[in-house]
């Protein structure tokens, strides 16, 4: 399938199917994800939402039995095309994981890792990148005096913000977040949510969350997944006050099946 550039659309997904071995996890979905918005993906366990997220930066390639068909166009380019450089894709499409996963290095080196991979060697430049990334995640004031301490000296919430800063340091366009708060307490969660709100001015964010309320709070668009299909996709405010589909309504209000 060919991709064309659509204005203000970061990802255009058509007819996407994903299987693990013989099990079909995503059964043909289509979505257009707008840039500079937070798109939340909700749905019960096993609906395929995390799998879907992982295809967007091809982290699903690390699952040996996975098979992806259909087309995912990122800014007009098919990310599953043979000519696609996965590394370049992942520079553009960053990812934040369920559990904070800083490297066992200093705070500075954690953030500098990405730029160094891209060949940035200049100390001054690196410093600048580290500082601006930390500032953008509101972590600078908390850690500026101990950039050389281990990243593990931070609290869970700070670690997760560090991971976000690390993702920002490679100057991505899109940030994928896979239940980024599920390992955090409510206060740390609230801070991450505030951060997401801040970041969406500059980045396109796609967040998978199994917490409906979180989706309601942070996102502009929400997609409701059920057993590998997208049941409803639209404005978050609409989805949570007057969903179009009965299945969405039933899921949101706890009546389903």
């Amino acid at each position, binding site marked *: 399938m060919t991709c064309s550039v659509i204005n203000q659309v970061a990802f255009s997904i058509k007819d996407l199917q994903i299987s693990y071995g013989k099990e079909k996890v995503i059964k043909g979905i289509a979505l257009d994800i707008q840039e500079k918005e937070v798109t939340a993906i909700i749905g019960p366990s096993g609906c395929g939402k995390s799998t879907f997220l992982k295809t967007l930066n091809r982290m699903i390639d690390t699952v040996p039995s996975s098979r992806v068909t259909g087309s995912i166009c*990122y*800014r*007009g*380019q098919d*990310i599953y095309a043979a*000519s*696609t*450089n996965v*590394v*370049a*894709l992942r520079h*553009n499409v960053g990812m934040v994981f369920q559990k904070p996963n800083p490297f066992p290095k200093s705070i500075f080196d954690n953030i500098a890792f990405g730029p160094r991979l891209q060949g940035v060697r200049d100390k001054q430049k690196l410093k600048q990148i580290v500082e601006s990334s930390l500032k953008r995640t509101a972590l600078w004031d908390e850690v500026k005096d101990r950039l050389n301490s281990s990243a593990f000296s931070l609290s869970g919430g700070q670690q997760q913000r560090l991971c976000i800063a690390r993702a920002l340091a490679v*100057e*991505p*366009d899109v940030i994928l977040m896979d239940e980024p708060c599920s390992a955090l307490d409510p206060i740390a969660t609230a801070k991450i949510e505030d951060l997401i709100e801040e970041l969406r001015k500059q980045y396109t964010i796609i967040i998978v969350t199994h917490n409906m309320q979180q989706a309601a709070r942070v996102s502009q668009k929400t997609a409701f997944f059920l057993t590998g299909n997208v049941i409803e996709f639209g404005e978050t405010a609409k989805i949570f006050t007057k969903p179009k589909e009965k299945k969405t309504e039933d899921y949101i209000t706890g009546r389903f099946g």
Partner: protein
Amino acid sequence: MNQTGSDNKYNLTLGAKSQKWHEKAVLGGLTLNGLFAVVVVVAVFGFLLQKGLPALQEIGLKEFLTSSRWMPTSPNPGYGALSMIVGTLMVSVAALVVAVPWGVGTAMFLAEVAPGKIREFIKPTLEILAGIPSVVIGFIALVVVAPWVARTFGLSNGLTALTGALMLGVMALPTIVSISEDAFKAVPNEYRDAALALGATRWQTMIRVTFPAARSGIIAAIMLGFGRAVGETMTVLMATGNSLALPMQEFWGIKIPNYLASIRTLTATIAIEGLDVPWGSLHYRSLFVLGAMLFVLTFVINFVADIVLNKAQGGE
């Protein structure tokens, strides 16, 4: 991200080729390296077979397994390995009798009962025990244990199956402790909490919850201990006297193993005769048959232990 509108922004095809080549080269090298293990196993076994098979054809498997007459250098050579097989099994089984209750008990103590400080003392101690070279253990058997056995049982010579078994038991101990302790430790604390919260005492928790949950790991530990005992060379070489006679005695008309007799194991035979034997002779080749037997025996033991251990790890 560069300036908006720049050509490189969002481009996904940059630098694809060179990176792929680099990765492929690294992967190729590592794959060859991984293959090395397989090559070694096949080479060892192949080599043993290549040298041993002709001897086996010439002598016959039956003689190896059923005769106890091992006289390769005699003008009327005999190649019966039965007494060595019996000796090997005797010392190994007896070693387990010593080491299993001792080792599992110690492991249970370490994992479930011992306060932190005591555990931190005993664990490294056992690791040090595991590190003592077998030749040193053999030496101790020679100078300490054998005289004691001789005194205790009124023997003229203390180099007996019993001496060997005791030493092998000590040697298998760290293996059994370490793997069983791992098995106990692998039992999630959640189980213990659950049992305690249901009103079980600590002892009940240990016996009814932790031990069953660790069972397959313990079985694997025992098998690996057995494997180690079977394959041990220097200790038995130095502790058992290396007599070729079949170590059996009549007891009310039933033949039972005589642990107060001197025995010789398969491994000891190879060690004793390996140096002096003329390369290429039938005697030389018959040693490879013994080697192949050991190989197969330990292979089976390890294979089964591996399956058990995998099951233990995959069970949850």
